[in-house]
């Protein structure tokens, strides 16, 4: 157990009655409930927490919030290991394991810190300059080396065991940030009755009040915040969300917010997600995100022990943890002085205040006199030190003299940058305000208003007034007329204006962007080499491109570029941001859509039965379809599929085809409508008949195919392919609503309403007689090929029977309401037993369609015309239809187009594979001799050899030609014969019976 050597004896917002054990790099330590990992490390006297990205410099904690660039650690272990987590926002819990990153073999002795010695080659753009030659070494040497050296933390290697979810919320006014401004805004809006959501990224509401104290409405600010929160909690129209960062704003008032539901616990409780990603629809939003203190750029400004002034007093006042025993302050503004007051109040020594301003208030002089420290008018131009912290602090005094300050902590304040990221997400460019030397929001997204420090109003009184006004006006804009109540008040002390200090020149590395190791001299180099625009600066130096998005560095970098190029800051440019405001885990973005829940799963009506049979399933879109039904003793899929095909062709089998898209087309103009969407004619189809139909896209290419039946004068039943069920429905609705509104026709998707089975084979009638009412005439005369009608099944269920065939066998498709699908399939098996019935899967279905030369997905690939598929004769010349005009274009009717042909290897034992290119014999395989390719293949049990379909230029004139099948991907080259695509029963006698 460590002793919490740097914990004050009293004070702070920590719960000393709840100690918490944790480890850092394996070393056991203790903190308290209410600590962050960073504050607990501070309390344990830990200064060195990580190594920097490029130079492996020793780094400490710089800030106390989500802007932290340095203190990135790995949390947890095993499958929950989480890299690059900010110690400053990670809440401490009992048992927390944390580890430093980017060091080897240990944090104190890091081998790659030699990179500092080689630093001349690590300047901006070093990737482009250093690893230029030879190019071949990039992949094998440079990139692996750079990746090993430059990575930060290590991701977990096992699947994340925790769950994540996404949720929607709606409100009138969203308040982002729960400091004084946000609380005031939420109170004002909430009192009017508006629905308010108040989010804060921390656990406790109050923002800077938690660290800086002060008085509001004549009470301690902590008491005021508690009272405000209690009033908000009592309002039923207000929702308070802690640990929730508003991370983005999108069109139409949609905001994203990340709620860290269980990050503060070792393991999420049962049925509770780790994180929740919110989409909050807000009619108005108030950005009360506060401001971020900026460091000053000077040599050695990254030595552990150098901290932003506000962070230092947060650790001292809020966490009763002392980053140093004897502190110095380097500031250019009055706010920094609050850290001196906090240090003195905690009984710490103050070594000196280095203030860049000549004018120091009487009160500040009095403070210095009372505490016995010097006020030095000048600037810190070097901090010496390293992994053990600060050695000494060198000061260049205004008059030219020098001074040295001995301190183990240096608080730095270069002023404050409003946290305006949310306001710039719609490309609203911030505007420069000289009086505070900072950018403030301008032209935020519609309905958004920045208030308080986020809008450049830094005083407490100003924040309260601004927040109240923003909340009240958002509510009144929306028509909430009840009173917003009285604004809270505070007194702001008069301030001496800030005097901008961005960069103090001196010897040594002066860091602008700590996380990406971008120095002031990198920016100077970028300017010298011509990369002076902000956009170039960013990309050339990587300034602001780390996971902190340059929250502490962008404005300073811009200011240095402005100084180097002799321009003003607003002339140099502005910097805007992209969401998310804080790094968001992939888990939160995925929510519940992971693993088997990545998408919905659709099960066919016979699925459970097929599962009982041990079927092997294949994913086709969202569907799971039975691919084949293995039997004991079968050595592989091919043996099972071959058996299924042989059984169907010699006996009877059935296949679940419920996945086909099914659309009911109703109305007096149903036939006319179908005539316009299919290339062939349906208005003349007799009631009780089915017809194969082909649809084109408007550009003339084939879109989809299927059979459509006429069930009544004004009722057609249309089927689509499985893959295109949704798109065809959308297309038909487009035609109906947008193109042909004059037609009286209605479309209804009935894909899920019907269980449909194809029953095929010479014994199909024998089987059907067992399940169909004996009164039904199933003979060729009573039920001819392409006939359709409703029949009664034994037992009374009504079914639709379609005499259509995809397999080329005598076949029927039977459909029953989906709820009877399972019963039907069990009945088929029982009734079919005497005939040796088997179920067959999609593989056997595919084999039989290739044997019959039927085209499917691989041929309907978006580049083929009806003519290419051998279906050109179906194109009616008597009517307009979608795609007709464009299908007539020269290139779509050219004689050298690739058309569907049959293909078989000349060596009967040879396996054919799809994707092989068809090259004329004697030619070298190259693009100019590539005449086509193999699209679909199967082993044909009927021909006892591999066969296939392909697309071949002038293919119909080349039947009998032997060509070379060239397959460079698999290293195969063999001879094939081009043949008629209908391999089996070309006369079609079997299906016509």
């Amino acid at each position: 157990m460590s002793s919490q050597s740097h914990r004050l004896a009293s004070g702070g917002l920590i719960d000393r009655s709840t100690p918490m054990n944790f480890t850092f790099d394996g070393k056991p330590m203790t903190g308290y409930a209410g600590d962050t990992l960073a504050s607990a490390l501070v309390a344990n006297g830990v200064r060195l927490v990580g190594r920097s990205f490029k130079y492996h410099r020793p780094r400490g904690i710089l800030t106390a919030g989500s802007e932290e660039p340095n203190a990135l650690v790995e949390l947890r272990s095993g499958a929950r290991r989480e890299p690059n987590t900010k110690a400053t926002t990670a809440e401490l819990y009992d048992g927390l394991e944390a580890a430093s990153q980017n060091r080897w073999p240990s944090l104190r002795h890091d081998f790659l810190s030699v990179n500092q010695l080689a630093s001349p080659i690590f300047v901006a753009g070093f990737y482009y300059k250093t690893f230029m030659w030879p190019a071949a070494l990039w992949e094998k040497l440079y990139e692996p080396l750079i990746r090993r050296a430059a990575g930060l933390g290590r991701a977990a290697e096992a699947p994340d065991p925790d769950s994540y979810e996404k949720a929607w919320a709606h409100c009138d006014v969203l308040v982002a940030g729960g400091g004084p401004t946000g609380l005031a805004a939420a109170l004002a809006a909430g009192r009017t009755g508006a629905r308010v959501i108040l989010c804060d990224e921390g656990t406790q509401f109050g923002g800077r009040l938690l660290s800086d104290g002060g008085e509001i409405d004549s009470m301690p600010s902590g008491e005021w915040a508690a009272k405000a929160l209690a009033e908000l909690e009592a309002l039923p129209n207000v929702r308070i969300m802690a640990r929730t960062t508003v991370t983005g704003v999108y069109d139409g008032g949609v905001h994203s917010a990340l709620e860290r539901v269980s990050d503060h616990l070792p393991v999420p409780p049962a049925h509770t997600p780790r994180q929740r990603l919110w989409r909050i629809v807000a009619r108005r939003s108030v950005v009360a995100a506060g401001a971020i203190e900026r460091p000053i750029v000077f040599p050695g400004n990254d030595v552990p022990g150098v901290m932003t002034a506000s962070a230092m007093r947060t650790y001292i006042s809020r966490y009763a943890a002392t980053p140093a025993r004897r502190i110095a302050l380097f500031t250019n503004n009055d706010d920094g002085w609050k850290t001196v007051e906090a240090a003195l109040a905690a009984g710490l020594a103050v070594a000196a205040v280095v203030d860049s301003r000549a004018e120091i208030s009487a009160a500040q002089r009095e403070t210095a006199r009372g505490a016995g420290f010097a006020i030095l008018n000048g600037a810190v131009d070097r901090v010496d030190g390293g992994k053990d912290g600060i050695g000494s602090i060198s000061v260049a005094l205004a008059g030219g003299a020098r001074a040295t300050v001995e301190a183990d902590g240096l608080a730095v304040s270069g002023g404050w940058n409003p946290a305006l990221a949310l306001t710039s997400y719609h490309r609203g460019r911030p505007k420069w305000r000289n009086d505070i030397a900072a950018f403030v929001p301008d032209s935020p997204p519609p309905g958004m208003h920045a208030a308080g420090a986020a809008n450049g109003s830094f005083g407490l009184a100003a924040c309260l007034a601004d927040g109240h006004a923003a909340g009240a006006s958002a509510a009144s804009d929306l028509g909430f007329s009840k009173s917003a109540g009285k604004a809270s008040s505070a007194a702001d002390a008069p301030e001496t204006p800030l005097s901008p200090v961005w960069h103090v020149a001196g010897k040594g590395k002066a860091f602008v962007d700590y996380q990406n190791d971008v120095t002031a001299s990198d920016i100077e180099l970028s300017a010298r080499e011509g990369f002076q625009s902000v956009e170039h600066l960013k990309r050339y130096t990587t300034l602001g491109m780390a996971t902190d998005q340059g929250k502490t560095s962008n404005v300073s970098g811009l200011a240095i570029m402005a100084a180097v190029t002799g321009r003003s800051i607003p002339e140099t440019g502005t910097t805007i941001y992209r969401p998310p405001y804080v790094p968001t885990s992939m888990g939160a973005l995925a929510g519940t859509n992971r693993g088997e829940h990545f998408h919905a799963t659709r099960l066919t009506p016979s699925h459970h039965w097929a599962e009982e049979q041990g079927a092997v399933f294949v994913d086709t879109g969202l569907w799971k379809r039975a691919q084949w039904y293995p039997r004991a003793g079968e050595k592989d899929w091919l043996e099972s599929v071959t058996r299924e095909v042989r059984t169907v062709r010699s006996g009877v089998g059935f296949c679940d085809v419920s996945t086909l898209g099914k659309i009911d087309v109703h109305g007096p103009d149903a036939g006319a409508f179908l005539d316009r969407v299919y290339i062939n004619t349906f208005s003349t189809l007799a009631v009780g008949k089915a017809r194969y139909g082909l649809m084109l896209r408007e550009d003339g290419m084939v879109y989809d195919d299927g059979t459509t039946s006429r069930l009544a004068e004004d009722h057609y039943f249309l089927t689509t392919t499985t893959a295109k069920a949704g798109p065809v429905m959308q297309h038909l609705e487009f035609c109906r609503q947008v193109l042909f509104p004059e037609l009286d026709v209605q479309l209804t998707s009935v894909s899920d309403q019907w269980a449909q089975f194809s029953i095929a084979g010479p014994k199909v009638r024998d089987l059907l007689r067992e399940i169909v009412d004996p009164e039904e005439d199933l003979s060729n005369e009573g039920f001819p090929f392409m006939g359709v009608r409703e029949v009664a099944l034994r037992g009374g269920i009504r079914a639709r029977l379609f005499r259509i065939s995809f397999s080329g066998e005598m076949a029927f498709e039977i459909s029953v309401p989906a709820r009877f699908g399972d019963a039907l399939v069990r009945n088929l098996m029982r009734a079919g037993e005497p005939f040796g019935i088997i179920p067959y899967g999609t593989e056997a279905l595919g084999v039989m369609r290739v044997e019959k030369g039927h085209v499917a997905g691989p041929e309907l690939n978006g580049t083929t015309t009806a003519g290419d598929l051998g279906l050109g004769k179906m194109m009616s010349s008597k009517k307009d239809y979608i795609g007709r005009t464009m299908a007539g274009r020269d290139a779509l009717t050219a004689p050298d187009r690739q058309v569907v042909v049959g293909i078989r290897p000349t060596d009967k034992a040879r396996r054919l594979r799809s994707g092989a290119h068809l090259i004329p014999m004697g030619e070298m395989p190259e693009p100019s001799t590539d005449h086509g390719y193999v699209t679909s293949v199967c082993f044909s049990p009927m021909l006892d050899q591999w066969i296939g379909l392909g697309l071949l230029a002038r293919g119909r004139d080349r039947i009998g030609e032997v060509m070379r099948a060239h397959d460079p991907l698999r290293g195969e080259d063999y001879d094939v014969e081009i043949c008629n695509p209908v391999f089996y029963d070309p006369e079609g006698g079997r299906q016509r019976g």
Partner: protein
Amino acid sequence: MRIACPYCGPRENGEFSYLGDATPVRPSLEQGVDAMLDYVFLRDNVAGEMQELWYHGGGCRAWLKVTRNTLTHEISAVEAARGAGAAKVGKR
């Protein structure tokens, strides 16, 4: 982004799919291939307000004509697209 479907109310954009410009009118067969080429392929790249076709596939399956500013993404009107692409009878 959210679209206020005239039948279903404001719904999130995941329920909709986008087609494109709502102004082209499908030429009749007699207008020939040039008119059809224009209709199928040629679109203006509008910077500003444009009328677009959106399909509410995750809702009522209505095709909608949405007036949207491509610069600000602001949606100023949503109506049923009924007949938006219909050839005008007698106007060839």
